[in-house]
């Protein structure tokens, strides 16, 4: 039997299909879920397979629809909602924060909220101030919410399947530049139904620890490969869930490497990255040879213009520069992509 290639988007679809099969009460809703574009291909065919009652398009009413999802989930329906941008979901912060996140606690553990909300980070040319925000730090700040930030085709399906089957409200943040990511071997992906490992050492190394997730993890892995050629050996750690980090893995790594970069796609102020850095300082203070570096977005909104965004997003070269500065060695930058605002030639906009 030959192995088939698979993609990040395909794994997301596979996870939804399996969950829908496993739990006949489960429903999926979202704007455009059954339209010709099928939410970047991630919901293709769900309605045909499971019917219009269980898979449906919805009114442009994010706030109430989230409340409706919570109410249905509390009553016993497993609910998956998908939004094409994180930013569109912000209308529903009240329902999410005051209801979904609090319900189990506030009613003394009597009820659960089996609700998962897929939010897509829209980075890409011209997305500007209101169509590309990475808000994992916000969501992680709220007790009672679980937050999952997938990065790789090999475990995204497993992470989503488990998020859906979890009886806690979960925010699942997908960076859309990952949707086309291909894994050469579908059979080598983590089995969907197995419990995921949320903190994983993806590459081992003795000189530097790089902690990352989402699209930034791709840049980190690229940096690791390149730096190895320059005899700097980085350990790369994936944080797939900011709300269930296995801190021990991080402390162990930094104690060994004595240097650490945390890179995350949010604004750096009050961020997930700064929280991880804080924990590293507290637990590995004596081991550190240089300050923990935080790489993220500057503290201003993303302008729309091509010309104004050239230095907005950190990339592989930001990591290389940080490492070479901190280690006091000269390492040449990698050649940049032709356009900073697209992941590759395949991306043509406009949406």
């Amino acid at each position, binding site marked *: 039997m030959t192995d088939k290639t698979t993609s990040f988007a395909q794994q997301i679809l596979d996870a939804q299909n399996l969950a829908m099969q496993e739990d006949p009460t489960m429903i999926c809703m979202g*704007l*455009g879920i059954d*339209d*010709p*574009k099928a939410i970047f291909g991630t919901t293709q065919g769900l309605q045909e397979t499971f019917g219009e009652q269980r898979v*449906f*398009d*919805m*009114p*442009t*009413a*994010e*706030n*109430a629809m989230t409340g409706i999802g919570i109410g249905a989930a509390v009553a016993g329906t497993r609910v998956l909602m998908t939004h094409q941008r994180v*930013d*569109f979901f*912000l*209308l529903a912060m009240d329902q999410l924060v005051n209801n979904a996140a609090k319900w189990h606690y506030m009613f003394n553990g009597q009820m659960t909220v089996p609700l998962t909300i897929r939010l897509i980070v829209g980075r890409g*040319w*011209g*997305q*500007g*101030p*209101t*169509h590309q925000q990475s808000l994992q730090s916000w969501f992680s700040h709220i007790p009672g919410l679980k937050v999952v930030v997938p990065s790789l085709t090999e475990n995204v399906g497993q992470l989503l399947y488990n998020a859906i089957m979890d009886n806690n409200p979960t925010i699942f943040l997908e960076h859309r530049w990952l949707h086309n990511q291909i894994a050469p071997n579908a059979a080598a992906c983590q089995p969907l139904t197995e419990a995921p490992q949320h903190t994983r050492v993806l590459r081992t190394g003795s000189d530097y620890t790089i902690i990352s997730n989402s699209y930034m993890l791709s840049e980190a892995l690229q940096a690791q490969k390149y730096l190895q050629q320059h005899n700097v050996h980085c350990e790369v750690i994936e944080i797939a869930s900011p709300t269930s980090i296995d801190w021990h893995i991080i402390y162990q790594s930094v104690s060994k490497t004595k240097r650490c970069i945390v890179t995350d796609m949010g604004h750096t102020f009050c961020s997930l990255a700064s929280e991880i850095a804080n924990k590293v300082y507290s637990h590995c203070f004596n081991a550190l040879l240089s300050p923990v570096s935080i790489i993220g977005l*500057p*503290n*201003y909104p993303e*302008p*729309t*213009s*091509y*010309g*104004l965004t*050239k*230095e*907005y997003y950190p990339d592989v070269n930001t990591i290389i520069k940080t490492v070479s500065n901190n280690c006091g060695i000269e390492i040449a930058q990698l050649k940049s992509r032709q356009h900073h*605002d697209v992941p590759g030639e395949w991306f*043509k*906009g*406009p*949406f």
Partner: protein
Amino acid sequence: MADLKHIYFQTLRIRKIEEAIAAKYSEQKMRCPTHLSIGQELVPVAVSHFLTHADKAYSSHRAHAHYLAKGGDLVKLIAELYGKVSGCTAGRGGSMHLSDLECGFIASTAIVGNSIPLATGNALHQQLTRAEGLTVSYFGDGATEEGAFYESLNFAALKSLPIVYVCENNQYSVYSPLSVRQPTGRSISKLSNEIGLKSFSVDGNNPTQALQTSQAAINYVRHHGKPVLIEYFTYRHREHCGPHFDDDLNYREQEEVQTWLDNDPLNNLEKALDKDPEFKAFQKLAISDINQEIEQAFTAAESASFGSIEDNERFIYD
């Protein structure tokens, strides 16, 4: 007739501008999501015809026509799409966040329904300061599903605010027809009436009707100081976002598309003006003037520079 020729000119101008954007969009130099108004141009023209400088407007993601009809600067619009420093927000906002304060076009915003409360707040300000003028709030049928729509209309009715809510009902939100989003047969204008607004509904592609209704509604706000909602039925010719036609995707019935193409506002205006012996000459001149203006705007945009990255941190706070 003189009026109608003016209306024709404005409508034609917006059509030509949007078509020029569409023609050049694939060069990938206008790198921002762009929602064209081709097919829907008459609505803002018919509204703006009865507005003065003191009247203000807010709009949504599909804002080019609203901006232009209100008197927004064309050169700044095109430069904005190219992300240049000479754009109306110096490249910060792009197509979905336009502004031209000089003509009273306060802003368009990209999150569905989220400028409706802002427009309502502008009308509150006008009322509190006894300012001259009213506010226009443009949005689509999809936006009427957001809570902010009901909450704003309720407040406007409660406080008798001087505001004209303009709903461009093109029957779709992206690929989703009204039938999967709102109960069949319910009318947005009747609903608004029940909330407490005087409301109107009209074929937004029919020049005489669109003009008469706009005038009646705006006059009502001016004379009574109370809010109105006008629901204009119209249709977008091209894809939701981007320059292409997308009827190969079959999300709209062919017959429906054809019916609306036959009811194109620009054609309707041409038909109405056809009897005017001077129309042909007027049209010829109009086309050449407009083409020239467009060419100049694109040349200026392409040759302008991007803003400086050093300025990116300006204006986070006042």
